[in-house]
């Protein structure tokens, strides 16, 4: 029996990630997902004025700063019981959707599909077409994604001044009202992107594509008139399935969604009780049941993390983030291990679609499970849905152009107390938990989507989602395990990851 350890280093927007895998006879027997970078945001926020979170927290993540800003403002509004008008909700939603479309296009076509240009696939039937479409800086779809992901965030600049990193959501609303110029500009950006998406990505009209509700309809649409090989969705699907990605990378069956986009018609309710356009829930992967989401069921463990230890799991309001770097112990990461109802869960567009009841995704899931191809497909399906929802949001804004964009909060300061902000970022469930004492931030805990997915083992020794999606996998060539790259990238870890051999046969210490 041959055993070896391989080290996968992987960059992503929120920091660096490594995987350390143990292989026996080419099969992954253990996996450690290692968040190597520590930045200390939760400490930086302590003692600051509560509203400073609107400036500091977007800087947690360069690709989802709008979602961070939204979580921060919701936490402040929750703490202060501060109402917002419908148009503020619409503008926030529009910007969140634009950011997610940006992220999904970049993740899909700058980070995920370039792998199909790997020489390993040169004998595949659509390899040449895939290269023409997906090759970095040269492929037609790659270049289109560069261009249109750049355009879609112009909508955020129209309302928020710039992307990335602005602070235009504030307690009570947003900084500027929508006027007809911004709305026409936004529609123009959306129209151009939609046309590109229809012509190059899905090969048909948006509404027609969204109307495909069964697996049969979907696969038939790919075979009709060779449509599949002439659209990015078809090439991506056939390359994925020829490579067997629909048979790999399942991970935990449990899924979590916080729901997305507050309903502007339910502005009288306070978050987290305000209705959402896409609903929140917990999908129990063992029973198949979707249950109501309850944030009090969230805990975080630190048994295998480089933080000062406490027993079991703690809710973020009792959370503690004190670094305790112990490289020579069995602790291995800067990620905590979040659990929901004491279960390992995954979050992201697949979870959102299944909990939201998307018929096509649900049927594909029932047939083949939550595999690497479906996880990536769910992301592109979401792009189509968001392009439609953005248009509806702009219609909502234009029908109420004189409505207020802010209700100035009654008090000057956010009162002492606690609040939470839960949103759906491009990568899934994002939460901020804030406590205020003596007018200053006394605790700030952030649980990112990647914290859920990249979780290490918890205090009961149960692996996190990404770790378990790799355990049991057979690797063809441990020196160049392309399939691991596909699986990890299907979880949207933001940036490229690659494989780096350390040594064979014995455990290597990564740390001095």
């Amino acid at each position: 029996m041959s055993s070896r350890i391989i080290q996968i280093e992987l960059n992503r927007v929120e920091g660096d990630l490594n995987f350390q895998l143990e292989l026996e006879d080419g099969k992954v027997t253990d996996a450690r997902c290692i968040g190597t970078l520590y930045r200390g945001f939760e400490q930086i926020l302590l003692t600051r004025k509560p509203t400073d979170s609107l400036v500091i927290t977007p800087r947690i993540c360069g690709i989802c700063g709008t979602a961070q800003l939204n979580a921060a403002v919701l936490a402040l509004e929750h703490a202060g019981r501060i109402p917002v008008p419908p148009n503020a909700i619409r503008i926030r939603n529009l910007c969140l959707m634009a950011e997610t479309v940006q992220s999904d296009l970049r993740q899909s076509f700058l980070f995920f599909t370039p792998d199909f240009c790997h020489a390993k696939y040169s004998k595949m039937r659509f390899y040449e077409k895939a290269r023409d479409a997906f090759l970095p800086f040269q492929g037609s779809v790659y270049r289109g994604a560069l261009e249109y992901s750049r355009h879609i965030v112009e909508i955020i600049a129209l309302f928020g001044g710039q992307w990335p990193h602005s602070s235009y959501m504030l307690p009570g609303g947003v900084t500027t009202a929508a006027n007809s110029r911004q709305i026409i500009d936004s529609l123009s950006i959306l129209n151009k992107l939609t046309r590109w998406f229809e012509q190059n990505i899905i090969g048909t009209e948006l509404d027609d594509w969204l109307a495909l509700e069964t697996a049969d309809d979907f696969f038939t649409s790919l075979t009709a008139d060779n449509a599949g090989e002439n659209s990015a969705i078809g090439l991506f699907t056939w390359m994925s399935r020829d490579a067997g990605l629909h048979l790999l990378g399942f991970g935990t069956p449990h899924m979590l969604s916080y729901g997305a986009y507050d309903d502007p018609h339910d502005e009288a309710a306070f978050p987290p009780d305000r209705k959402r356009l896409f609903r929140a829930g917990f999908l129990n992967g063992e029973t198949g049941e979707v249950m109501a989401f309850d944030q009090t069921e969230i805990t975080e463990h630190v048994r295998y993390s480089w933080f000062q230890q406490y027993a079991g799991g703690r809710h973020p309001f009792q959370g503690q983030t004190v670094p305790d770097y112990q490289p020579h112990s069995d602790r291995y990461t800067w990620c905590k291990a979040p659990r929901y109802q004491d279960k390992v869960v995954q979050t992201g567009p697949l979870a959102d679609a299944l909990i939201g009841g998307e018929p096509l995704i649900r049927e594909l899931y029932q047939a083949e499970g939550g595999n690497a191809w479906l996880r990536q497909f769910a992301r592109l399906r979401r792009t189509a849905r968001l392009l439609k929802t953005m248009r509806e949001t702009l219609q909502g804004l234009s029908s109420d152009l004189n409505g207020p964009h802010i209700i100035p909060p009654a008090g000057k300061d956010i009162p002492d107390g606690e609040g939470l902000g839960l949103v759906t970022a491009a990568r899934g469930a994002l939460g901020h938990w804030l406590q205020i004492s003596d007018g200053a931030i006394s605790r700030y805990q952030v649980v990112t989507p990647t914290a859920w997915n990249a979780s290490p083992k918890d205090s009961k020794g149960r692996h996190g989602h990404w770790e378990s999606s790799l355990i049991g996998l057979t690797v063809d060539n441990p020196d160049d395990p392309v399939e691991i790259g596909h699986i990890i990238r299907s979880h949207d870890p933001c940036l490229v990851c690659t494989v780096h051999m350390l040594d064979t046969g014995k455990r290597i210490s990564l740390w001095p």
Partner: protein
Amino acid sequence: MTTLLWLQTGSCGGDTMAILCADSPSLEELVDVYGVEILWQPSLSALPMNRLDELIAAIIEDRLALDVLCVEGSIITGPNGSGMYDPYGGRSKMSLIMQLAEKAQYVVAMGTCAAYGGVHAAPPNPTDCLGLQFDKELPGGLLAAEWRSRKELPVINISGCPAHPNAMTKTLAMLAAGLPVELDHLNRPKAFFNTMVHQGCTRNEYHEYDVEDNALGGKGCMFFNLGCQGPVTVAICNTELWNGRSSKTRAGVPCFGCTSPSFPLDHDLFLTEKIGPIPVNLPLGVERANYMAYKSLAHEAAPERVLNKMMDI
């Protein structure tokens, strides 16, 4: 051909996301037209990571010429000076950057974090962050103040949180085209850092006539009460618009001075510190007494359309 290696240290990836938004020139244009060869960029390189190890080895052994080293992110020196809060392949990124800097013709700090320390260096600076050649406003960071690259230049600081997309690509285009890059006292290219953010702000007329907002969400000037640092911060935000469309101050978001070494300030970011009715920090170079006289006169002279904030912004 101009070879470019981009590494991320303590970073959110925002400067990478920003440069993807550059449009004049775009990143593609740098590659297609300016002959920039991206040896490595963590978001964009399709090559396996062991290729990065090979590149680093080749550069360090002088087998591969490195023209431009771009660093995105704070230089993390903790814990205890080891830099291991931010490791790469069993060593600190900090030590890797130092080694590569010696080989590069130019070293460019992409964003305020790499230039001066940035948000991660805000109190209590949990990870002991620095900039490449500054520690906040103090000269000397990871590299000493007198350090120079092979082209006899200090680290070129394209500060901003994130750096302005076109300031990044234009600087790279200048380096690739062999155009001179003149720097200011904080080693920022003067071409992008000699104009106040305030210049070109659509709220400027409100500022001129001292018509102020007391709460966010309005149309007036945010300098006097709401923490806006537009008149004391140099950047091109209002002369080369963000994403080709707008700027924070136009959209009603105060300028937080994110191109400055002191970003983020260590007090309420939405409040202007004042002595009496006058801000502590006045527009760059302005005398206090003159300013008070000028402002009260200006307010008296303000036309109705400004006083009543009747103009769109």
